[in-house]
């Protein structure tokens, strides 16, 4: 069947619009990638070249072997990874408890959980510093881990509570009747169903810790224990001329774990959770 010309035109216009929006949003990322592989002399050439005459990996080599970047990167991955792991583990169990057990103050607790999260980070900076230093964790990565969990846990709990509340309780009752213990119900029935929610929470928690700047700047002084956001800032500040190519290479490497993380869990995001277990 032939499509009417007006309809075809509309479709083409719509496609153009979609690609234009994609272009606008992805341009900075493309520019970042291109700049990181441009020879230094072409970086600020005018008119700017979208594609350079030749590609080079020297900035990456420079970044990885002549700067403190690898150390910062490892520190960041450690801090974000550990705080995500702890926060998601605790929040999964906590959210299940909050949605499935009846206890006094249940709804009040659910509302108070976000309270700490609502305060501006800078308000808690000094009190938290005192607490962390009091624990003997001042100027250490563990101090940052504790701090990040403080913020990530309520957020994770809040996100996962909604996911858990949406899971049909009948399925768990069925498992209990089928012979599963409380633990078996939790691990074999609840966790697999909540997996998309757990993954989403993990990604948000990880990115939150990974990008955190203020606490990382204030709580850690030693270069060896610095994380990416303040560390890269220092790299930029220390040189008299900002080395845009190295900086863009750093940006690419910094972005990579987040993209990898998204790629890994995307399947779970798109999967409808809980679908097909219960009807009506």
């Amino acid at each position: 069947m032939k499509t009417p010309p007006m309809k075809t035109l509309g479709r083409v216009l719509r496609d153009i619009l979609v690609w234009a929006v994609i272009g606008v949003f992805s341009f900075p990322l493309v520019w970042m990638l291109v700049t990181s592989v441009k020879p230094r002399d072409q970086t600020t050439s005018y008119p700017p070249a979208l594609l350079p005459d030749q590609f080079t990996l020297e900035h990456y080599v420079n970044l990885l072997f002549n700067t403190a970047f690898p150390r910062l990167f490892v520190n960041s991955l450690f801090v974000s990874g550990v705080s995500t792991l702890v926060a998601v583990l605790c929040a999964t169990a906590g959210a299940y408890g909050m949605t499935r057990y009846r206890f006094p103050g249940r709804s009040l607790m659910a509302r108070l959980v976000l309270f700490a999260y609502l305060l501006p980070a800078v308000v808690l900076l000094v009190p938290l510093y005192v607490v962390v230093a009091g624990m003997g964790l001042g100027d250490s990565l563990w101090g940052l881990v504790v701090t990040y969990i403080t913020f990530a846990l309520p957020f994770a709990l809040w996100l996962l509570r909604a996911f858990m509340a949406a899971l049909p309780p009948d399925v768990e009752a069925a498992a209990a009747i089928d012979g599963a213990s409380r633990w078996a119900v939790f691990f074999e029935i609840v966790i697999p169903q909540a997996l998309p929610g757990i993954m989403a929470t993990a990604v948000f928690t990880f990115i939150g810790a990974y990008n955190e700047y203020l606490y990382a700047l204030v709580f850690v002084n030693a270069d060896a224990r610095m994380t990416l956001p303040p560390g890269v800032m220092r790299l930029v500040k220390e040189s008299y001329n900002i080395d845009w190519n190295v900086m863009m290479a750093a940006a690419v490497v910094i972005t990579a774990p987040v993209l990898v993380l998204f790629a890994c869990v995307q399947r779970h995001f798109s999967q409808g959770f809980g679908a097909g277990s219960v009807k009506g």
Partner: protein
Amino acid sequence: MAAITLNGIRKSYGPHTVVENLSIDVNRGEFLTLLGPSGCGKSTILRMIAGLDSPTDGGILFDGQRVNDVDPARRNVAMVFQSYALYPHMTVRQNLEYPLRKRGVPKARRAGLVDDVAAILRIGPLLERRSSQLSGGQQQRVALGRAMIRDPAVFLFDEPLSNLDATLRAHMRAEIIRLHLRLGKTMVYVTHDQIEAMTMSTRIAVLDGGRLLQLGTPDEVYARPATRFVAGFVGTPRMNFIPGALVQGDAGCVFRADGLTLDVPVPSLAPSGRQVVAGIRPQDLLPAEGGLPGRVTLLESTGQEVLVTAALGSQEVVMRLEDANGLRVGDTVGLAPRPGKLHLFDAESGERVGP
């Protein structure tokens, strides 16, 4: 197979009582239906039998053993939920195997049992599919299979058919009746659908507001409803109710309808002047010369029968006839109850009056 005894069960959530002083003996191999409108506490009773809820007061006994504090897993019951409650992240085979795995049945034996059940329920081709990829009827079958696969002592059904369309519901109803005949297990079935209750049960327990109103065979409940509520709840079309009083007639006690010239003799009762409500099933209301004049307001034919709605004074009654005999909307027809088919209930308490 087990006999279940509910002994003075009460269940309340805070100040709200859901089930009140309920005592029922479910015999071995019996198909007992808990019938009532939504909110009557029937699902709560089932959940207490399963062990998912515990009674506030009273005892639950399986074969004389108190099971109040026994985990659902150890009660050896199987339950089919209204929502089917299949495990969405597992295939049909894994769903069926789950209760066996939890009971330590060896792998080879599990496979055999799954095949047996799949053959009975004709779900063999679906075994490797995810439960989320099944239609409602298929999901219902898998849920049934998961219940029967481990040969439980008691089957519990919580409105298992209410999410199916009418054709499938009739089909699955027959399937469950066959399952009961084949296995002979004790089954407790919760529904608000009186057709399901009438067709499937050995006995029916009619509940309202957390109280047991009547316990009896389907025939007993239909022929001799214990309260006005039961009379109205069981039977389609619904029973007609006409308010009136028991008074002295020409030859003994009669029921005299309020505002109508209808006297029906009820010789077994005393003409006490007591306010009562008479119940007449639609098929027991007949067109008769000299009966109460009713004006036909609606005719509904199903092909095999005609439902005639007629205005009788200020209220409407329904008659079930084999054919309309030329009746039209607007006609006036004489109505009289079939002799001996009048049910009388106290106007205040709703309790049955007389035999």
